């Protein structure tokens, strides 16, 4: 081992900070250097050493480059928390930026750009201006990137001070690395701006393509990525570009290769000559294949991209299917992607080989992979008509192995094959029926039942087979129930004999009166009405010819595919999602018309009103996650007042709105107003309202922050004290800077069991919120237990009774709610169910109604609940049993809230 830095981690616990302080102020250089190293070590392990700020900054003026770098590193980390003290460092920065040593000049400018403190930013301008014109290319390349940093902090400043022009000049620099960094910086600035800043003309294009040859590998990536946005004027220009880019395919760096592929694919769209296209395809194939001998992680990226490429240009790898055969030791994520590509490349020519492979995979160990392999065989059958029979015989062979999950998966795909080739392969149904008893997965069961119903007239004992499922009808999952219903109706229509007639009675009864599933009930009623009014019409409807399916699974829309191909090598191409669907920072709005500005404010104001009035108990729609919302919004009054809003304000609002839209997070509920936890009177004008909520199985802290003070507030952070359930935030609080009068509402995802407090359960949740301008605010919130009720808390009657009996009476806790009147039972049950407190049964005892419910909180702690009420009279008696009776008070608190709501 070369270094011995680990010694810096082992400092004495006692009085560490004062000790370090003393050492930092030592008169000996070496001691000071060691002390700074200790500080950095402490910072690395997460200790807060920000209190040493002044002492560390005092060490900044040194000739020792290593020490200087460490101090700079410290500054980057802590300047934000000590903005006033950070100004102390400015002088040294400015001085360093004029040091004779280019390394120090570059270091100063690089570091200053990383310190995101407004006051410092102003001082950055002059040194940056100088460094952009420095004699030394190393300084210039650093300064180029620094412009992008500055633009991120203060775009206006960059534009005002003419940095963009200086940056554009650097594109013509004689040093390739400077050019590359300037291109990267400009491309990034362009991405975050609505104005055309960095437009690639054919002149710049040609200049940059020439620079490619001399750039470092990363510089080549920057340039290729920037150029891939260029639209060639015609096929000839496109061909010229491609010709100059193709040599990059031979680069050892996978990022260069993928960026080159991206660029070539973009230009190929314009090229009309089939010969040229064919030739290019031939050239691209080997480098793509070579990527598969890189590290598995890089292989994964390559495979996800190849998946896209073969969707657009299937010929590229048509002859290379063998390279996608899985190696036994490939990581699972590589195997899964290879399988997907094998399906896409499967053709009549290679299907025999492919099937042999799939069959081999279907006997491997990893269950997910095996299932996917079986499904792959089915998808090949659907894709290749001539190979369907061979695929089916492989599936039958696999069924004979009698591995449970293989059989079930095979049956699922055979159902699809029947849909694709109706009336062709029924001869195999007998074989399938042999495995009937082993089916225990809903999808497999439903598939088998569908097959029986569809071919009821060809299966002699179809009625017996279906009947065997009917006994357990009430317990089956909805998917199976629906299929059973339809299959029985088909059977009855095809064989209207006595047996099926009785069955249909049972099924219809089960599916209407005895069920609480609206889908099932509706479908059953429709069938029932059809059958009773006009059986012939029923036949026309139920037995109608179905459209033939095709294998379109995992195929992308052409327009989406276009977008993804333009993003080759990026996250977008790995997720197979367009960038805007997962990137939080969206480009600032392009159009700054009045239309864009006003509705934002007025709409939200408008939609808030009725929502507040609406019944708060109804769960918000689950699919609201795509609705973007304005996290930071000016109150309507502010927006409307200055009617002819100057563009500047419009810009600001537009920018704010978009800059912080986390489009992948569920929109905050527009439900009831949140309880105020920190009133403005206590919070020096800062008002915080918040509540825990549960949405889509995840706990969120819904927070509304209103700035009623006179100063802008920013840098909001939140922390939760130890609590019974260890609730803590899953990520940072995403609140934009708030101007006076502005407010922001956000949903903070929460996680459990992070900092669990000892002691008896308590519903108290202590929260601390801070920002850069004010002291830390502390307030108390209450954890309502029903937020923790999990979606899987539903119990079957049997297990409910069993659990109830198995718990000793000491675990039973009683409580009366004398004031509560259950007027609308139905609505109450729905509301409880929406909060994951599931209704199990109802019983009449004299003139009392007794209801039973179950609920579950994380760690699988169940609650069994009995509610007794005299119908029409106020007063609810509650008895609960749970393995953790000490949670009972919390539970009753939640129950009361739920019943009152």
């Amino acid at each position, binding site marked *: *081992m*070369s*270094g011995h*830095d680990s010694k810096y981690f082992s400092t004495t616990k006692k009085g560490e900070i004062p000790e370090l302080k003393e050492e930092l102020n030592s008169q000996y250089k070496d001691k000071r250097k060691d002390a700074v190293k200790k500080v950095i070590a402490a910072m*690395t*392990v997460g200790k807060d050493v920000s209190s040493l700020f002044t002492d560390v900054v005092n060490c900044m003026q040194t000739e020792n480059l*290593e020490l200087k*770098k460490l101090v700079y590193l410290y500054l980057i980390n802590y300047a934000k928390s000590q903005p006033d003290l950070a100004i102390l460092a400015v002088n040294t920065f400015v001085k360093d930026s004029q040091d004779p040593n280019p*390394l120090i000049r*570059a270091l100063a400018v690089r570091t200053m750009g*990383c310190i*995101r403190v407004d006051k410092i930013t102003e001082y950055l301008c002059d040194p940056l201006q100088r460094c952009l014109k420095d004699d030394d*290319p*190393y300084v210039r*390349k650093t300064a180029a990137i*620094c412009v*992008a940093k500055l633009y991120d902090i203060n775009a206006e400043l960059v534009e005002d001070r003419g940095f963009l022009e200086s940056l554009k000049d650097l594109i013509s620099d004689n040093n390739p*690395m400077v050019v590359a*960094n300037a291109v*990267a910086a400009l*491309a*990034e600035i362009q991405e975050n701006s609505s104005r055309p800043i960095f437009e690639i003309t054919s002149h710049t294009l040609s200049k940059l393509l020439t620079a490619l*040859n*001399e750039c*470092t590998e*990363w510089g080549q990536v*920057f340039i290729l*990525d920037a150029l891939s946005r260029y639209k060639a004027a015609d096929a000839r220009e496109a061909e010229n570009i491609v010709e100059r880019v193709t*040599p990059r395919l*031979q680069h050892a760096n*996978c990022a260069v290769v*993928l*960026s080159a592929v991206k660029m070539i694919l973009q230009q190929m769209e314009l090229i009309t000559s089939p010969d040229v296209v064919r030739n290019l395809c031939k050239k691209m194939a*080997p*480098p793509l294949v*070579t990527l598969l*001998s890189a*590290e598995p992680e*890089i292989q994964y*990226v390559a495979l996800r991209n190849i998946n896209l490429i073969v969707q657009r240009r299937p010929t590229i790898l048509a002859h290379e299917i063998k*390279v996608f*055969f899985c*190696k*036994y030791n490939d*990581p699972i*994520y590589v195997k899964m992607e290879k399988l997907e590509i094998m399906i896409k490349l499967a053709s009549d020519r290679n299907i025999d*080989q492919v099937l*042999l492979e799939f069959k081999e995979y279907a*006997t491997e*160990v990893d269950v997910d992979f095996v299932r996917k392999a079986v499904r792959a065989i089915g998808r090949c059958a659907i894709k290749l008509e001539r190979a369907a029979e061979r695929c089916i015989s492989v599936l039958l062979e696999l069924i004979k192995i009698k*591995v449970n999950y293989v059989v079930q998966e095979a049956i699922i795909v055979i159902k699809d094959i029947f849909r694709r080739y109706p009336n062709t392969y029924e001869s195999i149904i007998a074989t399938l029926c042999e495995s009937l008893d082993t089916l225990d997965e809903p999808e497999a069961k439903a598939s088998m039942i569908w097959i029986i119903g569809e071919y009821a007239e060809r299966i002699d004992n179809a009625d017996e087979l279906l009947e065997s499922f009917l006994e357990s009808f009430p317990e089956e999952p909805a998917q199976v129930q629906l299929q059973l219903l339809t299959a029985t109706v088909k059977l009855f229509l095809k064989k209207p004999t006595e047996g099926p007639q009785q069955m249909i009675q049972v099924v219809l009864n089960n599916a209407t009166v005895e069920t609480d599933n609206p889908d099932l009930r509706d479908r059953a009623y429709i069938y029932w009405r059809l059958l009773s009014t006009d059986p012939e019409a029923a036949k026309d409807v139920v037995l109608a010819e179905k459209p033939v399916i095709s294998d379109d699974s995992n195929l992308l829309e052409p327009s989406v595919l276009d977008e993804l191909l333009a993003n080759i*090598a*990026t*996250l977008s191409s790995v*997720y197979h999602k367009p960038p805007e669907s997962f*990137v*939080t920072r969206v480009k600032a709005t392009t159009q700054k018309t009045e239309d864009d500005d006003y509705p934002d404010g007025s709409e939200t104001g408008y939609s808030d009103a009725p929502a507040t009035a609406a019944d708060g108990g109804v769960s918000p729609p689950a699919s609201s996650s795509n609705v973007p919302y304005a996290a930071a919004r000016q109150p309507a009054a502010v927006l409307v007042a200055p009617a002819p809003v100057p563009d500047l304000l419009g810009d600001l609002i537009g920018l704010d709105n978009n800059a912080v839209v986390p489009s992948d*997070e569920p929109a905050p509920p527009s439900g009831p107003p949140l309880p105020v936890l920190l009133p403005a009177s206590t919070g020096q004008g800062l008002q915080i309202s918040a509540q825990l909520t549960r949405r889509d199985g995840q706990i969120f802290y819904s927070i509304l922050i209103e700035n009623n003070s006179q100063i802008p507030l920013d840098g909001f952070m939140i922390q939760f004290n130890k609590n019974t359930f260890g609730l803590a935030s899953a*990520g*940072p609080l995403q609140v934009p800077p708030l101007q006076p009068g502005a407010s922001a509402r956000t949903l903070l995802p929460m996680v459990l069991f992070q900092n669990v407090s000892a002691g008896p359960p308590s519903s108290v949740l202590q929260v601390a919120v801070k920002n850069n301008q004010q002291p830390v605010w502390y307030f108390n919130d209450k954890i309502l237990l029903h937020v923790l009720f999990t979606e899987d808390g539903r119990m079957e009657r049997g297990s409910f009774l069993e659990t109830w009996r198995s718990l000793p009476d000491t675990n039973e806790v009683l409580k009366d709610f004398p004031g509560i009147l259950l007027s609308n039972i139905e609505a109450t049950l729905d509301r409880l169910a929406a909060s994951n407190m599931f209704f199990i049964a109802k019983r009449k005892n004299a003139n009392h109604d007794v209801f039973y419910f179950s609920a579950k909180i994380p760690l699988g702690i169940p609650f069994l609940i009995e509610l007794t009420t005299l119908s029409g009279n106020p007063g609810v008696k509650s008895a609960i049993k749970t393995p953790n009776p000490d949670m009972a008070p919390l539970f009753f608190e939640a129950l009361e809230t739920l019943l009152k709501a």
Partner: protein
Amino acid sequence: MPVAASAIYFLNLRGDVLINRLYRDDVGGNMVDAFRMHIMQTKELGTCPVRQIGGCSFIYMRISNVYIVIVVSSNANVACAFKFVVEAVQLFKSYFGGAFDEDAIRNNFVLIYELLDEIMDFGYPQNLSPEILKLYITQEGVRSPFSSKPTDKPVPNATLQVTGAVGWRREGLVYKKNEVFLDIVESVNLLMSSKGSVLRCDVTGKILMKCFLSGMPDLKLGLNDKIGLEKESQLKSRPAKSGKTIELDDVTFHQCVNLTRFNSEKTVSFVPPDGEFELMKYRITEGVNLPFRVLPTIKELGRTRMEVNVKVKSVFGAKMFALGVVIKIPVSKQTAKTSFQVTSGRAKYNAAIDCLVWKIRKFPGQTEPTLSAEIELISTMTEKKSWTRPPIQMEFQVPMFTASGLRVRFLKVWEKSGYNTVEWVRYITKAGSYEVRC
């Protein structure tokens, strides 16, 4: 955007942060907690190297006992990110003298901070060439395996070299004896069906170079590849010499190789970095000479016995020999007792991996040793499930043999001072994933 990272974390297997660096402001400092909670502590770990949690994406890989995690919130260039990690690890290794693990990070954290500051700026990778960085990032205790002279103070024109067109070689190198070592290392990948037909077979080779050359030499490498030879004879307008030629499916080059020139003239010309580097990689699928044939017969005799016979045939020249041959023959998990005979080497049963491991230290060409084993199985009460047989895997090294048939025809060195160079060439073929299904 070619941004590769907003933050980079190095974590140990427990999830403690060993070192981290935030490059951009768009991800919170506590996002690593999300990684710990949603990936490290779940069975998700290892199922997918790119994951999105909340608004952030995590791009991670494990190297020895360290997780390297890149966090981004924009649509970053993933290929760039992974390649950056791979190259950064290379760089650290070259600084620490070979090892990269938890201890090495703790012991060199000051140096790593310094390097992290230098090799990436605002999420954009910068120069990662060890040779150049060592000019001006020097720490006590840094042992460079090939630095010619200790550099006490930064070379004055370091910055010019970092950014120069030859960003991988410094100027003014002087060696008494000018030498070049070429190592052609091939790994042959095979997947053979139980019936002996080749399902997939390819060779990935790399040419490793060690240069101890003075000044700024220009090098040109000639191989016996078909296209290169054809082009050469075309240029010199004389018929190609007869002799074995091979067809390269694909080649990739170190950044020092002039790609445009390769594209037009098919010659590999370059100014090499000093010391050791990987000049090129190539891939071949046609006409591969397999060094070994494996002929297994596995019979299941009733429920509790198995008979395994494996014959391994070496098909390279009789004067050559393979080293470190290991053949792993999988057996059922229910194996109770094994007995076996081998005609060469040693075999034993390794219960941890459910394999018979047969090792032959020195394996001459044109021989065919065999292993025959009898295996008794524990009879299980439950109905016998068909045993899923993993493939037989093989490891080996064959010096002075190339599975592709590749040969170096010449290596020319030009330098303005006109010195003479000594060139050394070695060949070796190793097993990549050499699998035979049974």
